[in-house]
């Protein structure tokens, strides 16, 4: 296990760090490399130790009160410094709103390539990392690999499973690194009201599109979702144009992977469908029998959602008794 072959993961988001450790372990084992996590934070020693249980052979810990909250230049300079010193071959960075620019800037400082938002990751016969990402507005999946090292990719939330923690041994390397001066100042932060359960975690999703006539009619979806112990989702126009919801499913929204996805009054254009690729079973309810959603559904019902949804709720209740 030589230095310079390492697979690294970094995210300021805890869950994403663990998810990437799971995938990172797989990649590191395939190429015979060490798996390391980078932790930049304040009072983060416990967290660093915890990461060993999730698969890290090594944790580079940069612990200082000044790293208590994410700051672009500070985090970037620390990460850059570590990469230049320890020369990992592969770096996985969490694709959050802060993580993605961080990856882009790191790759630029190092004059190397970056493949963003990899929903799948593998290794080719030459040992190179291959990332898969949705592109051309959901019309295509691109498989991309690297001509330079380090290979930097960003990984979205919930693309990979969180591994089970195990008793294993690993090394925490404490480092005291100076950070570059911040160029931006956060003047205010407000918490965002989001649904308490993340839609990515839902096992069943009842989702509606512009076929829904009034905001109040959402109750039809809520009721069916309740029977399925699931959640309600929507297409982008319902959130962005009509503002009936705050988030949506699709290419530019949430990529979901429920066991059951019921699309009601959704036409099924490629940008929406890109978000439900990993659903196990897709049901389409649409009054237009030509709607493209039927091409990408396991079960299709041509009909009015206002009639089908209540009937389906009753039928499920009856059959589940």
């Amino acid at each position, binding site marked *: 296990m030589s230095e310079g072959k390492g697979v690294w993961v970094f995210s300021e988001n805890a869950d994403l760090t663990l998810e990437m450790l799971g995938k990172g372990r797989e990649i590191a084992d395939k190429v015979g490399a060490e798996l390391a996590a980078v932790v930049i934070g304040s009072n983060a020693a416990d967290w660093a130790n915890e990461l060993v249980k999730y698969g890290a052979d090594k944790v580079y810990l940069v612990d200082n009160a000044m790293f208590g909250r994410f700051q672009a230049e500070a985090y970037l300079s620390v990460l850059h410094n570590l990469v230049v010193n320890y020369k990992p071959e592969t770096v996985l960075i969490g694709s*959050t*709103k*802060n993580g993605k*620019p961080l*990856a*882009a*800037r790191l790759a*630029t*400082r190092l004059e*190397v*390539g970056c*493949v*963003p938002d990899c929903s799948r990751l593998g290794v080719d016969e030459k040992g190179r990392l291959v990332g898969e990402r*949705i*592109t*051309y*507005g*959901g019309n*295509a999946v*691109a*498989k*991309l*690999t*690297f*001509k*330079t090292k380090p290979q930097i990719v960003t990984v979205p939330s919930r693309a990979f499973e969180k591994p089970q923690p195990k008793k294993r041994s690993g090394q925490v390397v404490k480092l005291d690194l100076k950070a570059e001066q911040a*160029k*931006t*100042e*956060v*003047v205010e*932060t*407000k918490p*965002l009201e989001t649904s308490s359960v993340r839609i990515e975690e839902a*096992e*069943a999703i009842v989702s509606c599109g512009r076929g829904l006539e009034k905001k109040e009619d959402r109750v039809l979806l809520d009721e069916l979702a309740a029977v*399925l112990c699931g959640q309600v989702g929507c297409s982008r126009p319902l959130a*962005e144009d009509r503002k009936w919801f705050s988030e949506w499913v699709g290419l530019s929204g949430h990529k979901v992977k429920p*066991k*059951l996805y019921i699309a009601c009054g959704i036409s099924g254009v490629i*940008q929406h469908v*890109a978000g439900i690729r990993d659903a196990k*079973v897709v049901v389409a309810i649409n009054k237009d029998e030509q709607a493209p959603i*039927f091409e*990408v*559904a*396991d*079960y*299709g*019902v*041509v009909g009015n959602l206002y*009639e*089908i949804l209540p*009937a*389906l709720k*009753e*039928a*499920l209740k009856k*059959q*589940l008794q």
Partner: protein
Amino acid sequence: MKRIIVCLKQAVDVTQLKVDPATRQLITASAPRKMSDFDKNALEEAVRLKEKNAGVEVVTVTVASEEAKTVLREALAMGADKAYVVNDAGLKDVDTLGTAHVLAEAIKKAGEFDLVLCGESSLDSFSGLVGSRVGELLSLPQVTSARKLSVEGDAVVGERTLEDSIETVKAKLPALVTVTREINQPRIPSLMMIMKASKKEIVTWTLADLAVDKAKLASKIEVVEVLAPKTERKRIRITGESVAEIADKLAKALIQEGVVKR
């Protein structure tokens, strides 16, 4: 404030893309192009800042390997004062880093600036990298994914939506900002504006006009394949005499699939 630069991409109109069903290849060559939609928001924001601050010039910069004039005409009609396009056959296979190098050099050549605006992601490649790469090459402070923007004295203030919070960030000018779609509703240029735009200047540069190190343009990424996703769905139609019968059949099928919790 004197000058705002907007990085404008001419993108493949992804809503009009066709796929060859036999090979799953995209037919991109003949696909219609348009101004990348987030970039249109960036341009709109620049024009609004110009309307609030007299004497500001809005300049667009585009890197293309083909004709991009219609998109630039539209930009000028929306209120940009000048459009630069770097058009060179040598740009066919550049990746996000190469594009950023060319943009950074073109921005420097276009003159002194206070603000660079980019889209958060481009319509077709949707990588969301180029803006931050340009900012890094120009050593600028960055405000990414801004959904609100204002200029206060010698600083720019942006509001960004993160996964669990909304953050207000301040950066001293010159700075780079990437914008989301929520930031504004881009205007549709009137006939008058379109007419006026025909007198404005589009400047074409080739790589030879820029101080770009050609060695830096070699792609760092290898494309293994780009194919339409396979759809492996069952496509079973559920029909029946009545809504109740259809619902019963569907419920039964879902329970059999094991996707419904008891």
